[in-house]
């Protein structure tokens, strides 16, 4: 019932790599939104979300990703989501957000 976020800028690929560990829900998504806003402020670039240790996402977590994507799209940047678990993939599929984000298995 908590979320920890590791953030790194990858110089080679010129993208942010964000690795959230835990549960991204109405309790933790305000903090996650802040982190995304900060890195976008710091450097506009593509963002890769590494979902290996993300156990849960809810509609507010999806909302934070959507609004980050909107900001990035202003500069033709994108959000890529990798290593995502089946239960989370299912939510992207049923909301149609699998077509909005770049999802790599």
């Amino acid at each position, binding site marked *: *019932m908590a979320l920890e976020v590791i953030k790194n800028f990858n110089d080679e690929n010129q993208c942010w790599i964000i690795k959230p560990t835990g*549960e991204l*829900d*109405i*309790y933790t998504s305000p903090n996650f939104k802040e982190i995304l806003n900060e890195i976008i402020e710091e450097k506009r670039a593509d963002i890769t979300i590494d979902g290996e240790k993300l156990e*849960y996402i*809810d*509609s*507010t977590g*999806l*909302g934070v990703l959507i609004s980050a994507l909107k900001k990035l799209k202003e500069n033709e940047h994108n959000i890529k989501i990798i290593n995502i678990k089946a*239960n989370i993939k*299912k*939510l992207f599929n*049923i*909301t149609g957000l699998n077509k909005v984000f770049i999802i790599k298995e």
Partner: protein
Amino acid sequence: MSEKLKIYDNDNIKISIPNKPEFVGVVRLTTSAISNRLGFNIEEIDDIKVAVAEACTIILESQLTNTNIDIEYILNDNEMTIFVRSEISEQDNEQLAEKGLGLFIIKSLMNEVEMKDDSGIKELKMIKRIEDVAQ
């Protein structure tokens, strides 16, 4: 025709939490444990957990009044009916209508979903059936 012994016959579990975001995790765990008892498979348990959490989240996102969120689970052998209820003001109720994503998720995951407004009580009723039940 063989008569089957009923294990659950409208058995009733309730949980009530303060409208604070950090308690939705408690509801998720409790919901999973109850669904597991009833014999849903892992994917169904996950569906129910997500749906109940989204119902709480809809209320938490729009509710300004400081009352608890009440969740009631009615257990039967082949299905579970869940009510999520909260007092809600007229103003909160309008805000609630905008929150489409959560409700969309709930409708995708549950077999039946019904929203009710009754004298200041918002009620979301959901039914999940065990699909691979023996005929």
